[in-house]
């Protein structure tokens, strides 16, 4: 899971659109807000591409920017989302064919940090050290968020198979 890519700032920033989109949609969830986060991240990547220092992979740098932009947008909406609590979803039947939909729905019930860590570690397969750097917390805290997120998701989703 640790990043093995080499630094490649010369690669077109648009090549990273799918990566940025995955992270933004995973963390922010609301389609319009996710689009805002995606655009902000891509703008920052284009703007600072030449400032990239080859201390890690370019993809890791892109992930960090995408995560921070997504967290910024998600936190901006936090009060609003707190005011409008999500009603508990109807228990889905065990043989629900759209298991990705169920997981995506359950992700919305996690806290922003838990969701971000889950998306980066489980979905993007980033190492905890990189997740912590992207989210802006300690590695132990990131592990804790991931553990709590996974425990909650297992409880909510039961058997997804």
């Amino acid at each position, binding site marked *: 899971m640790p990043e093995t890519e080499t630094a490649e700032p010369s690669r077109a920033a648009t090549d990273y659109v*799918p990566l940025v*989109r*995955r992270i933004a*949609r*995973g963390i922010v969830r609301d*389609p319009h807000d996710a689009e805002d986060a995606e655009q902000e991240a891509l703008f920052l990547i284009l703007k600072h591409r030449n400032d990239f220092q080859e201390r890690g992979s370019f993809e890791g740098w892109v992930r960090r920017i995408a995560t921070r932009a997504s967290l910024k947008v998600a936190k901006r909406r936090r009060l609003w989302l*707190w*005011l*409008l*609590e*999500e*009603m508990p*979803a109807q228990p889905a039947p065990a043989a629900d064919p*759209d*298991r*990705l*939909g169920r*997981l*995506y*729905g359950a992700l*919305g019930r996690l806290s922003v940090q838990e969701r971000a860590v*889950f*998306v980066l570690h*489980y*979905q*993007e*397969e980033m190492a905890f050290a990189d997740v912590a750097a992207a989210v802006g917390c300690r590695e132990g805290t990131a592990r804790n968020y991931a553990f709590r997120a*996974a425990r909650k*998701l*297992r409880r909510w*989703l*039961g*058997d*997804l*198979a």
Partner: protein
Amino acid sequence: MMSDDELRSVARALGARLETDPPKVPVRRRVRRVALIAIALMLGAGAFIARPRDPAAAIESAYAGRFAEVRIEDPELRREFEAALAQVERAIALAKDAVRRSPGNTDFSELCHVAFQAKVRLIQAYIQGS
């Protein structure tokens, strides 16, 4: 219960799907009850703070409990007291009105105090006399 590997595998599949067509998740939301209570409390507090305050009432409250009941047996003396009291009450009403119109005017506030003190003195004088 899902294993960690299963969770990772589903999460990766979700990531691939998020690139193209994120799953449509119908979300039902409702206003949090705590938020409703907090909003109601804030509105109440705002209304309390912004309520129009009667500056004359503040002066009057300083004399609350100082107007004792006067019992006068002599009818003539009672009429005299009631006439004097009516004049003082008129003076108080005028002073209060002036204070309400110009809350920042200290002269009117003082006038209002003087009128209330006159009422206190009048009552005390008739209590002692009767």
